[in-house]
């Protein structure tokens, strides 16, 4: 029995969006998050590529295109080539480092970028020395070169021993589950096929091929087919002297994989809702029991799923993956919270940041209250945390006044309403990600010392600030606004005629959001309380 396969690390050079990228993985669950186009899918694709040397199900060697190369790398090469014909043609390297796999010694050595003794796989796309002459010819006129000439390139697939490997040499296998359904001509889903194929034992697969072949043979014995063929052979001589007949192609090219369709409750797979297709594919991959050498790669499980289906699916993923390494990409806070924030890896263009050290209580908290927008905090450049919808509107307005009419989001600053949750839960995350975050809160009548003490674990970091008013007579936002702007102005904005501050305060308390909306959209000059001004600076 082979050891459980675990990917420790991936290094990517010049592949697609990544010019120089390195990312370490958790032993079990990994949730990759990041902005669109940051390369979440590329990481998953690169892992799959290194472990199988296949891209989109085909051998990489046949799929080489200049567009696999990083755009910056390409333009760099093209511009350098213009002045120096000896410019080294770029190469793509993907290295996947595995946990020690004694017995798979073809993977062991120090022929890796890392240089230490380790087990792993290296995929390299580089100029084929056999084409050196043709290449020199090609670049002799650099103005013709606008892309990497991959037609002169070859694919090298090695273990870290430096020796060539085959699919069989790798103890780790990976299932890539992608929500976007890619179909073959026959209508069967490529990924589904792969998963079913992997799900079956070798013997079962052989049995399946055999029965499929006998089914095809029976076709030509069928009476009506015979009649047709007799008729066809009668036309001999019209175009050719050979006998024409109809039969099913039983050559190797058409195997059961491309012809058999999966059915769910007698419905062909492609007629099932997309959401259910997706669920089914994920569950099939997770159920694979053949061995533990399996790594599951899941792309955006939330796609096409309703909230309740997502809930079931995510619980299944969490339950089934206890002993497998799983790498999930997602855009969904719910998936993230439910699977565990501690498994989050926030991607950037050179690697990723994890928050493995998040306090257990905070992880639990978000697991139970999974609807919260943790992902927004994770993805924002910086964030302002507020207590409720009216605070959110006022902070936005304050920000616009301070920054010549620009909304905070235009500067990458997300104003997040924590909706009654403790700020500290979000600050735990912000602290681990070193994210510039400001908290704007009411003093609720508490004095400065008391409130400062509450956040002292966070405010030692200069990127975390907490803003509140030190005037304990003004406990909440509404009296603060009234105090800063005066009763008269607010009466004008709200279209009210309150004669006392108390009455106005009560009105604002009772109509928080309406008042906040009115203040947010008023053309009058507003004066913001100092603690809010400070927060939006």
């Amino acid at each position, binding site marked *: 029995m082979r050891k459980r396969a675990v990917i420790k690390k991936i290094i990517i050079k010049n592949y697609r969006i990544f010019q120089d990228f390195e990312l370490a993985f958790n032993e079990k669950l990994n949730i990759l998050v990041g902005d669109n186009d940051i390369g979440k899918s590329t990481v998953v694709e690169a892992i799959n590529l290194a472990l199988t040397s296949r891209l989109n199900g085909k051998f990489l060697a046949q799929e080489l295109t200049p567009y696999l190369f990083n755009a910056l790398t390409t333009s760099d090469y093209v511009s350098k080539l213009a002045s120096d014909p000896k410019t080294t043609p770029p190469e793509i390297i993907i290295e996947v480092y595995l946990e020690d796999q004694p017995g798979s*010694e073809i993977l062991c050595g120090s022929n890796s970028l890392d240089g230490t003794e380790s087990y792993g796989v290296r995929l390299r796309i580089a100029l084929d020395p056999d084409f050196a002459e043709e290449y020199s010819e090609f670049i002799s006129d650099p103005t013709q070169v606008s892309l990497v000439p991959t037609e002169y390139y070859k694919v090298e697939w090695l273990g870290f021993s430096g020796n060539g490997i085959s699919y069989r040499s790798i103890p780790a296998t990976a299932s890539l589950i992608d929500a976007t359904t890619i179909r073959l001509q026959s209508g069967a889903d490529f990924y589904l096929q792969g998963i079913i194929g992997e799900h079956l034992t070798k013997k079962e697969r052989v049995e399946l091929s055999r029965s499929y072949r006998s089914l095809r043979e029976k076709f030509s014995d069928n009476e009506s087919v015979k009649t047709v063929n007799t008729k066809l052979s009668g036309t001999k001589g019209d175009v050719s002297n050979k006998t024409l007949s109809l039969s099913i192609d039983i050559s190797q090219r058409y195997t059961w994989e491309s012809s058999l369709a999966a059915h769910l409750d007698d419905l062909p797979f492609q007629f099932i809702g997309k959401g259910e297709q997706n669920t089914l594919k994920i569950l099939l991959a997770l159920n694979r029991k053949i061995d533990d050498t399996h790594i599951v790669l899941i792309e955006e499980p939330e796609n096409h799923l309703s909230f309740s289906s997502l809930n079931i699916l995510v619980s299944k993923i969490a339950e089934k993956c206890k002993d497998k390494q799983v790498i999930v990409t997602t855009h969904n806070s719910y998936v993230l919270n439910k699977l565990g924030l501690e498994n989050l890896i926030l991607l950037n263009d050179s690697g990723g940041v994890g928050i493995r050290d998040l306090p257990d209580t905070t992880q639990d908290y978000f697991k139970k209250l999974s609807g919260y927008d943790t992902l927004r905090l994770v993805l924002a450049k910086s964030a302002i945390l507020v207590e409720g919808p009216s605070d959110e509107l006022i902070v936005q307005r304050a920000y616009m006044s301070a920054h010549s009419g620009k909304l905070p989001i235009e500067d990458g600053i997300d104003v997040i309403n924590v909706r009654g949750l403790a700020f500290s839960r979000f600050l735990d995350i912000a602290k681990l990600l070193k994210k510039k975050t400001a908290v704007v809160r009411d003093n609720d009548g508490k004095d400065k010392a008391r409130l400062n003490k509450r956040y002292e674990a966070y405010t030692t970091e200069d990127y975390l600030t907490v803003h509140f008013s030190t005037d304990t007579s003004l406990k909440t936002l509404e009296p603060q606004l009234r105090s800063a702007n005066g009763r008269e102005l607010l009466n004008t904005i709200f279209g009210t005629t309150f004669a006392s501050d108390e009455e106005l305060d009560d009105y604002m308390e009772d109509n928080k959001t309406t008042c906040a909306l009115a203040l947010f959209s008023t053309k009058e000059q507003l004066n913001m309380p100092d603690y809010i001004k400070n927060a939006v600076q």
Partner: protein
Amino acid sequence: MPSSNLVIIAAAGARKTERVVDTALADPTKRTLIVTYTNENQREITARIQRKTGVIPANVEVMGWFAFLINECARPFQRSVFGQPHYLRRLNFIGNKPDYIAKTNPAYFFDRHHDIYRDGVSDFAVLANTNTNASVIRRLERAYDHILIDEVQDLTGFDLDLLDLLLRSQIEITAVGDPRQFMIRTTNATRNRKYCGTGIVDWFKERADICQLEEQCYSYRCRKEICEFADALFPAMPDTESRNNSEDEHVGTFVIGATEVTAYVEKYTPTILTYDKNRDTQGFPGMNIGMAKGSTHDRVLIFPSGTMLAYVKSRDLAKFREPSKLYVAVTRARFSATFVDPST
């Protein structure tokens, strides 16, 4: 506890290769590697395993000595020698290592294509092992439970240093060979020179603590007459007892004239061996003696070199430089080995 490493020194026809194959197939739970020096023998071993089991079992691998040195010993930790990964390309089998280049210079080991000279491979492998504090050997220990080395007499120079490391490793080593069948190769290596050829027996004797030496002085193949002729070539080695007692009408060693060849071939259909491709075999297809190593035939007809023929006539070892080739040639035969004298 005596060492589990076993070295078998045996005469031609003692079923050495058979022993290697049987040992390899004996325990399917052991990951076993069979290494042998020549491509011909590698093919022979593969074919024998296939004859016995149909396919090569998953736990058994057959590899040439140089493939083993390069892929399993030199390449994985090449970085430790000159700091460069992916440098070593393949074997330069023809070229010779340049003289007067320091060992600290890659050109000592590699030609300009980064192919490694065959004289330098084991040296390089041992160096990589030293530099990595034995990573090379540890990796082999994880990969194999048992390594069998056929034709061990062909290991020379730094090959022996690597063999020494293997004998001291956790891997069980079984080595078989016949020093009389040592094929001289052009080498300018001076290391371990005294252990070349029959000297290898001394090398093993000096390592009695890490390997058991077993000498098998019998031949299942060759008749007594052939054994006696062959033994005379190596007076220092023990005599060989023939275990071939089958009768035949034409037994022993003979010399015939060039004019008698056609009639002889028609009568006895011998396998034809030639000293080199320049011998005139009168149109009969012949095999170089070196290529015939490991094979068995009822009769051989040998087109010898001048010095070989001179020895056959005079039996004077003093002037004879190539006893190994002659030994290999005659011991291919079960019954008769006949030499062609082109002068008559």
